[in-house]
């Protein structure tokens, strides 16, 4: 079985978010980039599956410019066999899915994260399946291979579900897919240097969305301390200032 893991390059989750160009663009100055956390878990599970047998190849793919290569190198260090970068700036979900469709045809299992932690679009996985005309399963929280058969776990209201799926298929993965992201070992980091990171030219693709503006959430008001024996004041504040009572 060949697995393709889609890797989105996102700002570190502790990044202080700022905007530029009149609030129409994210200001990426000084930002530390990481593998989107869901994609990191997807990759971890793919590597686990390869270690237990039944997987012949793990490829990681990203749509992005050269600045995303450290992220792909890290994916190679964690255990992917090779990487593809489609050399174009990722601008919207349809564009990204169209680009990915051009390299995703030869894989049995395609793993996408449930959302990218930057724009939270939750769109690429489903669009890609549609463009490839193959099945997709959302909210996958477990993947196993039993006797060559691919099994997905899904959390549903009040219980869980096990699905047997035919390939090729897109799995849109979420919490539970792997316990914790794998940290690359020194050996992996050294080997990553020698693995192939293929850069391919983009296909023509249209953007279907564009940003009008971003807004930061309103600043949190300073915390007010009320003495523990002053319940009256607390009620007054909740009533008159916070207006929640």
């Amino acid at each position: 079985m060949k697995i393709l893991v889609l890797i989105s390059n996102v700002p570190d989750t502790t990044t202080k978010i700022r905007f530029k160009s009149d609030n129409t663009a994210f200001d990426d100055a000084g930002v530390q980039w990481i593998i989107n956390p869901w994609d990191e878990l997807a990759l971890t599970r793919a590597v686990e599956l390869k270690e237990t047998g039944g997987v012949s190849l793990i490829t990681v793919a990203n749509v992005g410019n050269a600045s995303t290569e450290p992220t792909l190198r890290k994916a190679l260090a964690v255990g992917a066999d090779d990487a593809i970068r489609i050399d174009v700036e990722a601008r919207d979900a349809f564009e990204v899915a169209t680009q990915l469709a051009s390299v995703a045809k030869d894989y049995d299992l395609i793993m996408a994260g449930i959302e990218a932690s930057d724009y939270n679009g939750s769109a690429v996985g489903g669009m890609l399946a549609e463009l490839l005309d193959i099945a997709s399963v959302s909210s996958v929280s477990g993947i196993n291979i039993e006797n060559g058969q691919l099994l997905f776990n899904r959390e549903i209201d009040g219980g869980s579900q096990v699905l047997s799926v035919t390939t090729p298929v897109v799995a849109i993965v979420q919490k539970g897919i792997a316990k914790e992201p794998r940290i690359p070992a020194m050996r992996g980091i050294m080997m990553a240097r020698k693995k192939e990171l293929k850069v391919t030219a983009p296909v023509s693709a249209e953007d279907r969305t564009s940003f009008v503006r971003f807004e930061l959430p309103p600043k949190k008001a300073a915390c007010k301390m009320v003495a523990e024996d002053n319940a009256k004041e607390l009620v007054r504040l909740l009533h008159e200032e916070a207006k929640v009572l």
Partner: protein
Amino acid sequence: MNFDLSPEQIMIRETVREFAEREVKPVAQELDEKSEFSYELTRKIGELGLFGMNIPEKFGGQGLDTLSYIIAVEEMARVDGSQAATLAAHNSLGIGPLLDYGTEEQKLKYLPSLCTGTGLWSFGLTEPGAGSDSRGSKTTAVLDGDEWVINGSKIFITNASVDISLGCTVQAVSGEQNGNKIFTTIIVEKDTPGFRRVPMHNKMMWRASDTAELFFDDVRVPKANLLGKVGDGSHIMLHTLDGGRLSIGAMGLGLAQGAFEMALAYANERQQFGKPIAKFQINAFKLADMALKVELARNLLYKACWLKDEHRPYSKEAAMAKLYCSEVAKEVADEAVQIHGGYGLMKDYAIERFYRDQRLLQIGEGTSEIQRMVISRLIGC
């Protein structure tokens, strides 16, 4: 001039930082309090590939450069001094001499199991009567037929007494020539009869790192356990300590970095007189000085590593980096406690442990006074 780290070095920093934050930080305080060596963390550090980073792949290592290794020690020390000590002592003092002076057979025999985190090795130089003055050594090694017979004792030896300590490289006096002692270095495996290892408990610092006293009572080892040549002992020791100084430097730098980060975060959060204490100029300037010292320490240490990786002389820079980084660790940890006020004196705050852990760095592997002696000689005094 190029100050950029390679992509691999950047990834190594991120990886060790993630490991230290995820695996070490949550247990560091408890291990310190219980004065407990962690076999589990040591195994995990081995799985990550941090033991034997500078050893060629054919002996089970990673074949990485000095700077990559120093970055790993720095990142570990940013979170915990004890684990950084286990890591640095094993690589620089344990593995170092075996790699640099071992025969092919010795390397094949010992190194692979020392790269996995399931076996540690120690370096036995210091004795009760021979600290800064290592030539005061009284431990003797006498050749008797096909065996060395060792008698004497060692003190303060890191990684020497836990269950996974597989052996020790022992510095001994093997004779005399023109009134001068001849120093020879010999490999002693842990289960050799007459070799006793006694853990030294209740240290002020590095409480989760193993420190031991070693006793040799007619310990017999094969002649082939000689490391290097007879009379090479002093040279092996000096060479090993040169490398070791870089890793003590890395421990100072990492500790200072960690203490600085804690102080900065605390100063921005703690409010007194209606504003964060970082807004008071005296604290802001203190933090600026801390940042400056950390930056200087890093530049000096990395330059010494670069010299080593370029196979150029680096003894002077290594001594300078050891001295400066360990003193910066003291100054930064001290000011960081000050910024924490009373909370900085409580065990619930990691800065309390950092303040204790830094104290060894000006003493171990050559005290600050000895470093100044080394530097002054090398600059022509």
